[in-house]
């Protein structure tokens, strides 16, 4: 029998698989740890997620520097010794800082977890912020800011955030030379003492979680005393700004960075899951309307996409691309056409089905392996949501209609509501 290559194999609608859930355990000192024991490799990841401690523009640079320099010295160890104590066991300590949260993640082989946790505990107990480490970091950070400022995509991104939220709002700040140059180590030490309360942290443990691993955890962070400090309450109120347009000249640029967006809302908003789906149609995957039209049909750009970024107390929507200076205006016209089309023309059943199926597959991909499962959990838990959120999202994926898509687009993605930044 000859093979009919024109005929696609039978399509089976990807089904929903149950999400492997985190379970909560209590350490001896009462700390909760969320555990995801999965996967086949003998590896561990421990995430300690603290509230950022940011209260405004005045302490943003302090909070950020403190976090990035947390592993650069204790009373008994120099930066190189701390780094070596992790490197030796093939472990990684990763620090990540944002306006809502700051995270310390330890990646370790299971068989060395005892040693690597002892090293981490030393840091958590005794980070010392040596003066010379801060000075060296300042030089490096300032140089890196100056290099970033040569990148049109970086400029467009930071300018849009600052325009939407205000350049002194934690969601709109980007650090400048002065913010960094004025820091002193004493301030960092004080901030460290008051802004790393372990009892306020969300602790997530994923990988091959043996009994030995839990024992190690009890013998280390399970012995930490609670600091009882009162961190300042932080709730960033966001003032909605009117849409505006800004062009930043950058001479000799062969491409322009374009970023178009608006303030949206956090993950807890009723429309958030639906907006995710609408965003996917517009610019959230390779076959999206923006990619199909502006890259695959017209060849104006190497890449274009859109996204919805949730903060704890707000969020924003953005479209981002880099396009040759000669075709930039044509590309922007097409972007607005696509936004407009979403609000006036119902999406076809075929396109909606494709996006639904793609997103179900995408959801399965986001659960591949213990670290991915940990990230999924983190993405709901930090926003005060439960696994119900994921169930609801999957249900919405099945039930969403072209009318609902148009309704959400009309409510949130009107072209006139967008702020536009062009650099270059």
């Amino acid at each position, binding site marked *: 029998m000859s*093979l009919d*290559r024109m005929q696609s194999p039978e399509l*089976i609608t*990807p089904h929903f698989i149950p999400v492997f859930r985190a379970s909560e355990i209590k350490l001896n000192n009462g700390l909760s740890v969320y555990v995801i024991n999965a996967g086949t490799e003998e590896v561990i990841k421990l995430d300690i997620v603290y509230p950022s401690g940011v209260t405004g523009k005045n302490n943003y640079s302090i909070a950020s520097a403190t976090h990035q320099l947390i592993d650069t010295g204790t009373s008994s160890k120099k*930066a190189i010794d701390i780094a070596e104590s992790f*490197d030796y066991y093939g472990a990684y300590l990763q620090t990540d800082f944002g306006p809502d949260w700051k995270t310390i993640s330890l990646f370790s082989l299971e068989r060395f977890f005892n040693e690597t946790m002892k090293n981490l505990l030393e840091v958590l107990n005794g980070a010392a912020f040596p003066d010379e480490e801060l000075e060296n970091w300042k*030089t490096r950070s300032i140089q890196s800011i100056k290099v970033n400022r040569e990148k049109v995509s970086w400029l467009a991104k930071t300018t849009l955030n600052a325009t939407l939220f205000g350049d002194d709002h934690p969601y709109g700040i980007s650090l400048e030379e002065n913010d960094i140059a004025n820091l002193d180590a004493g301030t960092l030490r004080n901030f460290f003492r008051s802004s790393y309360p372990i009892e306020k942290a969300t602790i997530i443990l994923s990988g091959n979680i043996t009994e030995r691993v839990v024992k190690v955890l009890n013998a280390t962070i399970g012995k930490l005393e609670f600091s009882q400090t009162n961190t300042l309450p932080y709730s960033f109120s966001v003032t909605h700004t009117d849409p505006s347009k800004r062009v930043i000249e950058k001479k000799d*640029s062969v491409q322009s960075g374009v970023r178009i967006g608006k303030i949206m809302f956090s993950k807890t908003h009723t429309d958030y899951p639906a907006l995710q789906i609408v965003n996917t149609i517009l610019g959230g995957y390779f076959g999206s309307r923006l990619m199909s039209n502006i890259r695959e049909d017209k060849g104006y750009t190497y890449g274009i996409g859109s996204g919805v970024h949730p903060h704890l107390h707000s969020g924003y929507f953005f479209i981002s691309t880099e396009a040759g200076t000669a075709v930039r205006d044509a590309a922007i016209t097409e972007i607005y056409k696509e936004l407009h089309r979403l609000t006036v023309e119902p999406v076809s059943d075929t396109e909606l089905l494709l996006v639904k199926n793609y997103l179900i*597959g995408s959801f399965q991909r986001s659960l591949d392996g213990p670290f991915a499962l940990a990230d999924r959990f983190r993405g709901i838990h930090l926003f005060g949501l439960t696994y119900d959120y994921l169930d609801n999202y999957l249900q919405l994926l099945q039930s969403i209609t072209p009318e609902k898509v148009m309704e959400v687009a009309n409510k949130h993605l009107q072209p006139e509501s967008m702020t536009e930044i062009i650099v270059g």
Partner: protein
Amino acid sequence: MLTFEKFELPNGLKVIVNEDHSTPLVAMNILYKVGARNEDPGKTGFAHLFEHLMFGGSVNIPSYDEPLQMAGGENNAFTNNDFTNYYLTIPAPNLETAFWLESDRMLNLAFSPKSLDVQRQVVVEEFRQRYLNQPYGDVWLLLRPLAFKKHPYQWATIGKELSHIENATLEDVRSFFHDYYHPANAILTLSGNITPKQARTLSEKWFGPIPGKAVALREIPEEPAQQDKRTLQVEKDVPYDALYKSWHCCSRRDTRFHTTDLITDVLSGGKSSRLFNVLVKDKKLFSNVNAYMLGDLDPSLVVAEGKLVKGVSFEEAEKALDEEIAKLIDEKVNERELNKVRQKAESGLVFGEMNHDNRALNLAYFEMLGDASLSNEQVKSYRNVTAEMIQQTAGEIFRESNSSVLYYSAKK
């Protein structure tokens, strides 16, 4: 440890399967043994442009992406100097859709003039975005031709110049496909929710009928041993001076590969490494520094690079870098440091096998090197590296006459 089964179809296609039912997905990887090193010096950037065209529809199927996304799949591809790699993940029940799509584009492409027109433009925009419009973006366009005089590693995968891409014709594209895109020049690997039996049935059904062809052997010119230090100074609109120093070293398949890789880890693997601590922290000459090897199929380069702190001269910076490198030749690394880089390499391998895309890629890559089972011998190879081997290999590589240096200076 990756377990796998391997078989070969009569047309020469090799298939490798890693079965793992802990995931609802399957990752599929198809590696074609063609990269920028196979290009004609007058038509560079072609392997990469061609990768873009592989998404422009095949002989029986007008769109590659749509049916894949409809089946819940996602895909991408990359090209480097040695090979072109296409990969996707798909929910297991729809795996046959992936076989259908991938086999049709191996059979023949649609060669649509519109697709060529658009993708030429897209690649030109990619060239601008990644190489021309980024600070320091053109470094490899300068360093490669400095270090390589005969071997095709002298050009980057994006190509030597925009005109090579702009002038590509449909005829060029057809002949490229004909030479390199056929079963015996490809490796198909699968990882995830699939049995070897299923893999065999589906491979025979979809890839089996594709006619076999002998692999076209095209001589790749060897790079002659370098006799004298080469330098190039350029002045560009960037905020800081940057130094790039390269030395010729062994190929990925050479027995000295693991030793050379650990040498670069001693120099710059992690924040306890030598270059960061001496050049950035103690001497404050660089604001960042990095050393790595390219690990290509043919002998290529070890590179050390970094941005200079404002006010530091190139002479001062290079001298300090050379001093650190000389220590590798003058003194043996101690046991603790050796263990550190060996364990770091090992954990990198373990973390690298956590997701199924990586597993499928690893199997294909090692099969290209000679045998997929090499993927399970890497830890041993790193453990076997001794302090003496590091010292000796460092001596072979780090000779001044073997170096090429790019002084990338900031316009005043």
